[in-house]
Structure formats: C-alpha cells, structure tokens
C-alpha cells in the first residue's frame, strides 16, 4: 500500500468518525450516560432481586426445580391460614379506624376556624418521625404486664391483636393525615356556595359535597394504610406475641429456620395485596387530578362556633394521645429500671455498657441516612430529569418510567429477602456488597424510590415544556440550564426528597433487618435486638434517639428551605 492510499484511507476514516461525532452531541452523550446509570441501578437493585426471589419460590433447598411443590406444602399448613387471617383482619381494622380518625382530624385542620391549627398539624404529623417500634415499646410501658394503665384493658393482654392494632394506628396516622389534608384542601369553593344558595343545611352539605369530593383521597388513604399495615414488621415483632402475621412469618422463616424457599413463597403472598393496592391507588390518583382544575376556587372556611369548638376538642384529644404515647417512650427510656426503680437517669442511654455494639448502631444509622439522602437525591433527581426532559431514547425513557414506580409495590420484607437471594449468591460478582453499608444504602434508596421519584417528576412538570429547546436555540448547554434554572426552581422538591429519604432511612426496619452485618447494624435493628433481649429501657432509649435525629433532620429541612427561599423562590411571590 503506498502513502497516498494510506492518506486517503485516513481521510475517509476521519470524515466518518468526525461526522458521527457531530451527529451525537454532548447533550445526548450525557443523557445516555445518566439514563444508563439509572437503568443499571434499577435492573440490578430492583428487577434482579425480585426475579431471584420469584425463581427461588419454585426451587427446593438444593436449587432443584420443584414446580409448585413449595406452594402446596405452604398452603397445607394450618399456621398459614392463621397468619393470613390475622394479617387481613389487622389490615382492615386499622384501615377503617385510622381512615375515620384521620379524616376528621384533616377535616378540622382544613375546614374549620379552630385556634392552634399549626400546633395540631405538627403534632398530627409527629409519629412519622419515630420508627414503628417506638409506639410498640411505649404501649408496653402503658399496658404491658407492669404497665402504668394495664387495668384499662380489663384483663386482656396488650401482646397480640390489641397491641399491634394500637401501635399501627398510631404509626400510620400521619400517612393518612397527609393524603387526606391534601385532598380536603383542594376542594372547590364554588360547590359550597351553590349549596348555600340552595339552602342545604351544613350537616347535609357534609354528606353531599364534602364526602364525595374527598372520595378519592379517602380511597387512596385506605389503600395506603392497608398496605402499610400488611407489610409492617416492627410493631408485630415487638408487641405481637403469638399473633402471627405474614411479615413476621418471613422473618422467622429466614432468621429462625433458614427456610428460604418458604420465605419466598410467603413473600409472593405479601407481594400480591401490595401489588393490587398499588394498581388501585394509581387508578385513583389519575381520577383525583381531574377533580380540581385551574378554574376551581379554593375553599376558605368561615367561623362557626359549634363546629370549631367540636373540632378543637377532637384535635386536642387526638394530639394528647399522640403526646402521651411519645412521652411514655421518652419517660420509659429515662426510668432507671422499670418497674422497680423509677428514679430518672440516663442509664439506659449508656449503650456502651448495655450492648456489645455500644453507640455504633446509632452512628451507623446516621451514616446510612446521610448516604441514602445524598446518593438517593442525586440519583433520583437526575434520573427523573433525564426521563422527563430528555429528547432522545424515547423507548428507554418510557421503560424507565414504568420501572421507577415498581419499587412502591414491593414491601420492605420482600425486598430484603430478594436482596439475600440476589447478593448472597457466590456466583454473583456483586456478592462483595453483601453486608456492606453501600448495599444497605442502595437498598434503602430502592425501598423509597417511587415516592421520591414522583415528587421530582411533579416538580419538573411545573417547568415549561419548551425550556430545553429554548436553551438549545441560544446555545446554552443543557447542564448549564439545569444548574441555573431547573435545579434552583426545583430546590424545595430536592430538599423534600432528601428529608424524606433521610427520615425513612433512620426509621426503617423491614428490609435492612436481613442485610446488616455486625459492622453496619442500624439503630432500628438494634432496638429490635435489645427488646428481644428484654432490655426494654435501652430499646426505648435507642428509639428515642432515632426520633430525635429525625426531628433534627426535619428542623434542618425547614431551615434549609428558609435559607434558600429568597435566592431561588423569590420569583414565585406575587
């Protein structure tokens, strides 16, 4: 080959490569990379574990295919039907009680002119800052064998149905309150004006307008509560006694009997109601949006002494109960040795003396929560941005959109079990992650992925659709647009996501209980262990520490919001 030929070839090569690079812009490359990261993340940490779990449910302990044998064996035992019945009874009872309690609380907050609304709002939401174990422990102090108010139960034991119900009512209350307040707040004043014009009594107005308008919010609440109850593990573990539910069954099968195939079958059973609830909830959410449009006029209540008085008394009652439960846990943690030595001291907080782990679980949890908030927020927001605002790769983006809502339908216990199957496999190169802090962090991000993702998408949707196109036309690179416009505008949502991830990472027990190692044991799990070992005081102390950390995080959140409000949100002010 002579030189001219080589040069020719070189030229040709340069031309094709050059034109190819011209076609793919930097933007597309960045978009592709971020989409690829999100895809890998979701495939490895959601789809992989779930698939592995589904597979295990049809294998025996030697990894041979046995078809549905596990299922037949599972359903032939009487204990299963007992757990199933218990789980559903609990779900329905708590759902109905919390649904009505929270509805009237939300009604009082949004539709009355009672005083001290702000305080009631904060108190109503307070239980969300505590791990679900905290009310359970508190109930033991209140109504346990040596409780302060055991007589109220008239000889019934708090361990079992009563305890679980009360604990879950307390813990799910703020979740219900959140959805219901939103749904009641967005109701149309014009309807109430028409009712007045038609001389409909206010009592009847409640039934013909208020209730129907909040219908979808109410359905959505009931579904969310039912799912939370069915999937919760902490309360039942601490105060359940012999009252078995599906979530504790999985725990026993894994930790007690090492029977992974059976645990997988139980998980599938738990996955079904959660999946069903998830689908119904999505349907309801779609309906809800059409109810309140841009022409609607927000409703502002007028003072009405009787109603306002009743609302005040009701809220006072509920928030007193909340304060008593929280206060009891704090008090219990400060009592030196319940019930014999009721002198107050910080002895229970002296974790170094009490357990081999000392304070490390608490710092582990803080570490877990910080990494989850940091990594999770970055990953979720950039993922949501790429999916929502990307220009190319339509199919991949649609696929990711679907994948992003999947984690919501997976209960924590099921997710945790899936992780055992997937990452505890020596053939999996990711096996090195097993037991590490990183896996706990990734697992927690996945566990709370969907809600955070939807928050990000909702914030991004407020920006004009053509913003990216406008930026491209004035040659402003997309990353600069992101930095100068998108991120500042969405900053409150970013903080919301970070706070949500942080607080949930602190309080969660269900998934992480399968995944920790002695170096990474989180505080919530150590609460469980200490309670198991009969160290109720220290368990309470650790639970209180978690709650304090969550409160601090919430305060930080409010502070950050205030701090950046002027520089990023000034344009919103009218």
């Amino acid at each position, binding site marked *: 080959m002579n030189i001219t030929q080589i040069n020719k070839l070189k030229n040709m090569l340069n031309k094709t490569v050059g034109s190819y690079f*011209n076609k793919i812009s930097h*933007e597309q490359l960045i978009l592709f990379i971020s989409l690829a990261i999100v895809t890998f993340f979701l495939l490895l940490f959601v789809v992989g574990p779930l698939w592995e779990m589904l597979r295990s449910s049809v294998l025996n302990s030697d990894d041979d295919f046995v078809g549905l044998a596990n299922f037949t064996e599972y359903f032939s035992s009487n204990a299963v039907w007992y757990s199933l019945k218990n789980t559903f009874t609990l779900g329905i009872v708590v759902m109905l009680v919390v649904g009505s309690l929270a509805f009237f609380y939300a009604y009082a907050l949004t539709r009355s002119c009672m005083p001290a609304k702000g305080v009631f709002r904060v108190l109503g939401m307070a239980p969300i800052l505590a791990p679900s174990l905290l009310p359970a422990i508190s109930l033991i102090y209140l109504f346990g064998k040596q409780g302060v108010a055991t007589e109220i139960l008239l000889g019934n034991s708090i361990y079992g149905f009563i305890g679980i119900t009360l604990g879950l009512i307390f813990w799910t209350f703020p979740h219900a309150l959140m959805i219901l307040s939103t749904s009641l707040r967005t109701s149309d004043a014009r309807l109430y004006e028409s009712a007045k014009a038609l001389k409909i009594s206010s009592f009847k107005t409640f039934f013909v307008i208020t209730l129907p308008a909040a219908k979808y919010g109410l359905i959505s609440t009931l579904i969310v509560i039912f799912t939370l109850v069915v999937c919760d593990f902490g309360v039942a573990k601490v105060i359940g006694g012999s009252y078995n539910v599906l979530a504790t069954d999985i725990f026993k099968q894994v930790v007690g009997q090492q029977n992974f195939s059976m645990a997988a079958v139980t998980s599938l059973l738990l996955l079904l109601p959660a999946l069903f609830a998830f689908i119904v909830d999505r349907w309801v959410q779609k309906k809800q949006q059409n109810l309140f449009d841009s022409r609607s006029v927000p409703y502002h209540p007028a003072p009405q002494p009787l109603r306002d008085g009743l609302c005040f008394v009701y809220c006072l009652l509920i928030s007193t109960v909340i304060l008593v439960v929280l206060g009891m846990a704090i008090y219990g943690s400060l009592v030196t040795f319940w019930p014999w030595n009721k002198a107050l001291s910080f002895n229970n907080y002296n974790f170094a003396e009490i357990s081999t782990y000392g304070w490390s679980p608490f710092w582990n949890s803080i570490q877990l929560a910080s990494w989850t908030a940091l990594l999770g927020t970055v990953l979720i927001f950039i993922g949501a941005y790429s999916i929502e605002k990307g220009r190319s790769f339509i199919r991949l983006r649609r696929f990711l959109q679907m994948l992003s809502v999947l984690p919501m339908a997976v209960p924590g216990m099921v997710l945790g079990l899936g992780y055992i199957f997937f990452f505890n496999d020596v053939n999996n190169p990711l096996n090195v992650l097993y037991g590490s802090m990183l896996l706990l962090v990734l697992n927690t991000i996945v566990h709370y992925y969907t809600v955070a993702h939807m928050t990000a998408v909702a914030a991004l949707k407020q920006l004009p659709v053509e913003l990216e196109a*406008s930026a491209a036309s004035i040659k402003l690179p997309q990353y600069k647009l992101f930095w*100068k416009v998108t991120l500042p*505008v969405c900053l409150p949502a970013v903080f919301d996501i970070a706070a949500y991830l942080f607080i949930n990472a602190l309080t969660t027990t269900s998934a992480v209980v399968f995944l920790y190692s002695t170096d990474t044991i989180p505080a919530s799990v150590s609460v469980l262990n200490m309670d198991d070992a009969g160290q109720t005081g220290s368990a309470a102390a650790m639970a209180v520490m978690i709650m304090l950390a969550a409160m601090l995080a919430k305060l930080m959140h409010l502070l950050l919001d205030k701090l950046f409000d002027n520089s990023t*949100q000034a344009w919103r002010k009218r």
Partner: protein
Amino acid sequence: MQTYLRLENVVKQFGQFTALQQISLSIKQGEFVCFLGPSGCGKTTLLRSIAGLEPVTSGCIFQAGVETTHLPPEKRDFGIVFQSYALFPNLSVRDNIAIGLQNKGFTNIECINLVDKWLEIVGLLSEANKYPNKLSGGQQQRVALARALALSPGLLLLDEPLSALDAKVRSHLREEICQLQRKLGITTVMVTHDQEEALAMADRIVVMNNGVIEQIGTPQEIYEKPASRFVADFVGTTNFISVSMINQHLMRIGEDLLTVPEQLQDLAISGCIVDLAIRPESLYFCEKGKETISVNIEFIEFQGAYCQVECKLWGDLSAHSIYVNVPIREARKLNLMVQQTRYLAMDITHINAYPSEKIMLKSVVAT
C-alpha cells in the same frame, strides 16, 4: 436573492404515523415565510425539524449552504419563539436575555449594552428587573423574541407566537414583528393556523394539510389562485358552486346558462360537472341579464363595513348556500330584502374551478 434554507424530501414519522411526507421547499435570504394549515397538519413538526429539535426520518436540510440534517440544535444557527413563551421563570427579564450572551463569552459590559439595546427595541427597558410571571402575555412574548434575537441568529423560527394573546395585543405585536423582521432582514419562518395572520405578515405562504404541502406562493397568489380545493376552502371564504358543462362555451348553473370563462375552457368537457370557486367579494348583485344567476335571498347579516348576504340558487334548494359580501354603501342602494329573488353576476377574472366533490365521492364509492 440567494436561497438560505432548503429542504429536500423531508419525511418525518412517529412510529407508524407519517407526520411529514416528502416535504421539499426553499426559502430565500431575508424572506418571511408562514407555514399555514389546520391544527395537527404537521407545521410544528416541520419547524422543529428545521431547528433540529425533531430528528427527520429521511431527507436533507441545508442552511446557508451547509447540510444541517443531522446536526443537533445547539450546533445550528437559529432563534426560536414558542407559543408558551418558555422563559426561564427564576431569572429576571434582563438575565433571560443575558444568559445566552454570557455563555457565548461576551464581556459584562457588552452584555449589558446588548441587553439594553434589545429591551429598548421591544420596549421593555422599564421592566428589565422583573420576573417573567409579573409581565403580561404580550410582554413575555416580547422578552422571548428579544432573547431569540440577541445572539443575532441567521434564522428566526416562530411557533404560533401570537396564538395565546388576546386580539388587541395580537395585532399590535403582529405589526412589531413584521417591522423588526424587515429592519433586521432576518430570514423568518412562522407557524400559524390563522390565515389572516399569514396573509397579513408573510412574503410567502406554505399551505400544509395532512403532512403535505398544498401550495407555496405569495399571499395574493394563495388567495386569488388557490392550487387546490383545500387551499380555496381554508384560506378566506369561498363559495363552491356546482356547474355542469354543456359544451366548450356554455355552462349551466341552477336554471341559468352562462358563458364559460376563458381560463376554464380547457376544463369544459361536455357533460362533466365541476365546482366553481368564487370569493364572496367577487359576486355582486345586478339587474337580470345574460350572464347572471338567479338566487333567493335567505338571510342578511350586518358586519359593519359590509353586509354578508346568504343566498340559495333559485330552484335548487338542496345546493350549498352562496355568500355574497356587499359593501355597505352599495347595500343601501340595492335595498335587499330576505325572500326576494335577485340576480348575481360574477367577476370572471377571479374564478377558479375544481373537480366536483360529488363526483369525487362517487368515484371513491366505486373503487
């Protein structure tokens, strides 16, 4: 004038759906071109293809002599304004315009001067430090225009820039855009579904329907010589009057026999039926004569400067109504009344003919 923008056989498909079919078109330097068509016909898609915001399925696009078909939008030379304004909500009016300039490497002083210059041009110097959502729709659109023009692009693209504004602001901004375009001499493409807007603003109009170009021409050509029945119907109001050709020189409308106008004589095969397309202002009432049509007046609508008179062909009540615009001074003289029988004459230089819709329908059924 040389060609600035050239499209060759541009095709755009969304999955199975073809939004643009073989679009070829060239636009001269400094020209103001409007894409006109009903909503959903592919105007925005074509505009976005030119901008590179929508990759084309096949075909080529050349801008300023260079092929740009596969270039991403940030490597092309254009400014764009959307119906939704799409301003940066958290930046002040000044920063909205400055951000592009700063990014291009202008110094601070240059930026300030340029921004001031453009704000002056669009008349918003006093609003420079406000946020976009404090401005009216018309003002926001001006900011968008200034932002698009500040980098002095070679091509200005406007996607229904006036559609979200109310009538008064719209006509005002319409004139401003025209003046600015002429002053800058910038090649401009505007998308609109409003035929009045297109007729008033454009040097040339591209009429589109269902992803194909129906006609390209000056506003006058489009209005007076519509290339197809669709264009005649979509641009302005047109009466379609069914006539049957008796021979090369004679045609029948309703009960009346008329001479076939010269430009239609090659269409006139005896026995065939065609539709005459006549604008309401090309019809006028007169005394009964040789070249008139007898009609029955059904309704008279007062429109201010003229009356719109709705008539039916005498003796053919099933035919479409014929609309006639009568200047108000003439209407007073004529003293028209509902239910009268009157006679219409046509301005034969402004008549076009298209194959009859009835016959087309029949042939569709037959095949």
